[in-house]
């Protein structure tokens, strides 16, 4: 009888049911609203990420769920039950803390058993469940160790096991990977994902690292100044940001301010002061004609060419002649192994980031410093933002 089967069988198979619901939740510290009128559903079995810069309220939101902060306004429901009045020790959620908070004076196995002892689980069952939990996080045989005999990564596994062994409805993770070094972080990312699939528990993670959120989460909420900026899947966040804040916070972006010049059913044109050519889109946007909009262009969606329009082999066939192509000179080259980043200065002086994958060991084109180049993009690549 393995731990994971236990956990899965104890759950109702309703994948789209909201397990957690924030209803108009506001938290004020003095006059400052750390969380401002957040309404959010988190569904059963999700790996949900709360993403945002420091001070955006994501940790406060998590701590309200755990019971360490009380909302100033609004309700928090778990399985439809308002948990506002429950103290942290009575809530069906468990947390993995940023510092791991493994009890330093207890053996690993006692750390993991602590929550079960508090629940007055029988001794025999405690032993069995602790062993299962140790196996789950790949720490079998280390139960007798003291925490300071473990590495940082192992301590985090103890914290994970200690929370999961209680079979919570929701597992909360506060910046789970921030204290690990780069190599270990990649490994732990993958393990968190597979662990979540294995135990089938809803995970909610707080992070300021957008790579981490994109890599792990099934759905993300981007927060800014206490409010939800956008809630979407990682790819939607990246490809279809709803605001300049989200476009800028998630990934790297070139942002151009412009005026919406044309807006039809399946094409639109934006004219930007910094770009010599108009930006042509093969779809309509929802803004009013003549209004100020922002064009967000991801660096990897910009192609760099040595030759200009009309000269072979250059071609950007999905835009009319003269659109979506601008000229510039390479000002900065950063070689990163798998790819090379370029900074290109346009005619007006604006710098644009782009990069090329190093597909072969010898770059056939060999772009050099101060070389004149053409930048072009497809009609479907730019995102037009209204705010």
């Amino acid at each position, binding site marked *: 009888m393995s731990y994971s089967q236990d956990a899965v069988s104890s759950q109702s198979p309703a994948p789209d049911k909201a397990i957690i619901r924030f209803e108009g939740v506001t938290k004020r510290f003095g006059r400052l609203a750390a969380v401002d009128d957040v309404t959010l559903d988190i569904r059963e079995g999700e790996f949900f990420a709360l993403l945002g810069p420091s001070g955006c309220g994501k940790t406060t939101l998590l701590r309200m769920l755990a019971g360490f902060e009380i909302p100033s306004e609004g309700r928090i429901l778990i399985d439809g039950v308002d948990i506002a009045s429950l103290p942290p020790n009575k809530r069906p959620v468990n947390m993995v803390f940023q*510092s791991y908070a493994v009890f330093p*004076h207890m053996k690993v196995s006692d750390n993991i058993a602590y929550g079960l002892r508090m629940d007055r689980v029988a001794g025999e069952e405690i032993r069995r469940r602790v062993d299962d939990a140790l196996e789950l996080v790949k720490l079998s045989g280390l139960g007798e160790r003291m925490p300071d005999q473990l590495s940082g990564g192992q301590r985090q596994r103890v914290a994970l096991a200690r929370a999961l062994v209680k079979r919570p409805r929701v597992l909360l993770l506060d910046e789970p990977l921030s204290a690990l070094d780069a190599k270990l972080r990649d490994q732990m990312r993958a393990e968190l994902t597979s662990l979540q699939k294995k135990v089938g528990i809803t995970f909610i993670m707080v992070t300021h690292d957008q790579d981490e959120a994109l890599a792990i989460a099934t759905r993300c909420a981007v927060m800014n100044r206490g409010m939800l900026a956008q809630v979407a899947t990682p790819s939607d966040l990246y490809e279809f940001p709803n605001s300049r804040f989200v476009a800028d916070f998630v990934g790297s972006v070139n942002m151009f301010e412009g005026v919406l010049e044309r807006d039809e059913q399946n094409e639109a044109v934006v004219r930007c002061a910094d770009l010599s050519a108009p930006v042509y889109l093969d779809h309509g946007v929802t803004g009013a004609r003549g209004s100020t909009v922002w064009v967000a262009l991801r660096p990897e969606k910009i192609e760099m060419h040595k030759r200009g329009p009309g000269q072979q082999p250059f071609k950007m066939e999905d835009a009319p002649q003269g659109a979506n192509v601008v000229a510039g000179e390479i000002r900065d080259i950063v070689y990163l192994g798998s790819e090379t980043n370029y900074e290109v200065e346009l005619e007006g002086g604006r710098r644009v980031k782009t990069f090329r994958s190093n597909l072969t060991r010898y770059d056939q084109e060999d772009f050099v410093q101060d070389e004149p180049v053409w930048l072009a993009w497809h009609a479907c690549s730019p995102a037009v933002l209204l705010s």
Partner: protein
Amino acid sequence: MKERPAPRPPKDRPGPLEYLRRWPLRIMVGVTLLFLYLPLMTLMVFSFNDSRRNIVWEGFTLKYYEKAFSNASLIEAFSNSLTIAFATTVLSVTLGALAAVMLWRFRFPGKTAVEGGMALPIVVPEICMGVAMLVFFARVMPWPQGLPWPANLGAIIIAHTSFAFPFVATVVRARLASFNRELEEAARDLGASEWRTFWDVLVPHMQPGLIAGALLAFTLSLDDFVITFFTAGPDTVTFPVKVYSMLRFSVTPEVNAASTVLIVLTVVLTAAGLYLQARSEDRKKG
């Protein structure tokens, strides 16, 4: 090719930071130790001196130890001192730890004043504390006379606790500064009540501070003279007070012997405390 003289092996030369292997520091260490311990050594050595007057060495004897141990009033003073020290330690550690937790954990109006007030017994001259205690127990709260032992020591225990617990509070507070609040939250998150959290997480963290504080309180109480002198009655003489009264007649080797016993006792207790502390650190490391 000319043969070069072999360089001295590096082990012979002191490294750049090995000051203890150079003569200036050795002399400093030697003089310091001499200055610290020579008076104590003299006291101990002369406790074995076979002479009524304690000036010239006349030969080895243990008779002053015998004399000291058969001196009923000295033994009584000694047991009084130990009892007082023990009670003071228990009270001071409890009170001091609670005060430290209060000051560390809560914010309340007048906190700074409370913190300053707590430090007062540490900085006020002992003689003033002594007089204050004398007046307090004479006028405000007279301790009933003629109580059976050990209740008759109550006044002294209260006086000692009042100056010892701020030391405990200071030590424990310093220890609490390194406490990770997430540990407390983790315990709550895992289902512990506030009370369980206090015992399961906070107290283990405070433990080294509690032991250090207990040692401090014990030694402070055991060798306090001034405050005790003002609070002690005729039937509640403590060891330091007794030694002082013996000195008024003459400095006999008996006083030396009694003092030596006290020194040895203090050293042994301190060593035991340090051992306990080291063991609890070790246990953490496993």
